[in-house]
């Protein structure tokens, strides 16, 4: 209990230490250690089969870990499973629902199952129906709803008992782009009032919705940090593209003289323009310098961009590093 109080002060919602799960000797996840603070939207990022679902299942008390501990809001997921279950709203992968029930009936059923009183479950059902935009389909049979609506029903179910922590396993899987956008917005809105832990194999998704990223690969954590930090990790090495109308020789001379440019390539573009790809030494933004240079020499400039590193690059970078280590 004292641990619970301590953690509340710290604002740590999820605390995982050395979590390992083996299936018949094969490790699905091994030695996971990470934490999620209260109020964060954390993204669990990994390829299919990386161990995301396994980890989330252990956090939601569906199955126990082989070794290691996990605490949610200070309660151990194995020893205080009931306390943990009361505090989490969990939506499994593929969002299983009772397809033969009606939306409102299902939500009330789930609320009662989670220990809400009859009047509370009615009230909460109304609230989550509004929150998740289900007002038009409350009396429809779930099996007849589109996938986007079903996803909303799953979210509404996860929310119905006002959990402290939402655990959503691939919440946008299998939706069309418009539905993805609306579900993502919903998750963002929920993030204002809840701690959210989502898993996904889509890199831009965590980038857009989460403020903490946990990258997992083959059952191990590659990186766990805030989204900005992870982006910063790579941003210094961002490549700069400049299309300048100038003689090739002069350009080459300029780049060679500029100390901040570590590496450059020049290719001919249409007409008099040359396309220069510059890699600056880390942490420096040389775009103002280039603009100055162009102004001084009265050259033409039609493009000046920094290719921002997406998580795709970060992910590939991290996994490559891992692979090299193995070799």
């Amino acid at each position: 209990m004292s641990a619970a109080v301590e953690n509340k002060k710290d604002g740590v919602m999820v605390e995982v230490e050395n979590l390992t799960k083996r299936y018949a000797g094969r490790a699905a996840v091994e030695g996971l250690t990470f934490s999620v603070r209260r109020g964060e939207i954390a993204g669990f990022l990994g390829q299919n089969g990386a161990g995301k679902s396994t980890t989330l299942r252990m956090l939601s008390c569906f199955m126990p870990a082989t070794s290691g501990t996990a605490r949610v809001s200070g309660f151990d997921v194995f020893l205080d499973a009931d306390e943990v279950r009361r505090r989490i709203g969990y939506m499994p992968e593929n969002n299983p629902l009772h397809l033969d029930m009606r939306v409102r009936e299902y939500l009330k059923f789930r609320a009662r199952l989670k220990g809400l009183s009859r009047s509370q479950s009615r009230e909460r059902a109304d609230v989550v129906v509004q929150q998740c935009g289900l007002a038009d389909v409350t009396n429809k049979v779930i099996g007849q709803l589109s996938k986007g609506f079903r996803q909303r029903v799953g979210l509404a179910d996860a929310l119905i008992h006002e959990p402290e922590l939402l655990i959503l396993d691939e919440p946008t899987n299998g939706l069309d782009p418009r539905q993805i956008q609306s579900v993502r917005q919903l998750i963002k809105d929920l993030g204002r009032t809840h701690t959210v832990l989502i898993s996904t194999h889509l890199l831009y998704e965590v980038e857009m919705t989460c403020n903490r990223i946990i990258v997992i690969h083959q059952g191990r954590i590659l990186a766990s940090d805030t989204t900005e930090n992870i982006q910063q990790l790579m941003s210094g090495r961002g490549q700069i593209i400049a299309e300048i109308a100038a003689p090739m020789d002069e350009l080459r001379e300029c780049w060679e003289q500029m100390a901040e440019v570590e590496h450059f390539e020049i290719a001919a573009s249409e007409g008099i323009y040359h396309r220069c790809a510059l890699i600056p030494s880390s942490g420096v933004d040389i775009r103002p310098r280039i603009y100055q240079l162009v102004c001084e020499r009265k050259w033409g400039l039609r493009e000046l961009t920094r290719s921002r590193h997406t998580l795709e690059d970060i992910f590939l970078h991290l996994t490559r590093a891992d692979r090299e280590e193995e070799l």
Partner: protein
Amino acid sequence: MQAYLTLVRRELGSYFISLTGYVVIAGVLLLMGASLVLLLESLNGQPVDVPVMELFYETQFFWLILLLATPLITMRSFAHEKFAGTYETLMTTPVSDAQVVLAKFTGTMVFYLLAWVPLLTYPALLRHYSTDPLAVDAGPVGSTFLGIFLLGMLYIAMGCFASSLTRSQILAATNAFALGICLFMASFLTRILPLREGWQTKALTHISIIEHMRDFVRGIVDTRHIVFYVSLTAFFLFLTLKVVEARRWR
């Protein structure tokens, strides 16, 4: 308790919003109707010196209903939830494993009993059309229903156990049917084996559900029989609970 009742209601309700429930009820009604025809046939014209319920029992349709309906009723209890994935959402709510097992058992059991309710009209019908006011005795009717309840309880528990083992409803039904048939067939061993005095014969007589039911329809309520069914039911529910808990051991 609240979660238990909610689950029982859901379990029972699922029979009435899907086709399964109505198909089972229709099948049971058909078999019951056939038994009534045979029953009336044997009552027609000749004097009968056994209780009416024994005549019903002699038509053998009772066994068909018990052996065929129970696997169909129980097959979806766990298997369907596992197949649909709702097992995971169920098991991550603050509900204990024991509550889930007991709720599934209660729900299926109540449905099984509901399917038998039409049989109650038979004694009423016979009493209404019979010239002899003592033709239908409340005692044997009551004990017959007690027998139906007890035998059903065991078969439902076996069915739940079979369903908890698999994700496929077909397999669940087949396994439950196989278990049920084994127990039923064991009763015939007492008839096939030469009647020898000895513990084997005694033991076989003790587990003969055919003999048990014959006692019940005659109005004999033997505590040994009650203990037999209650303890075996508890045993199969215990096994089911262990299967449900088994996901924690893996």
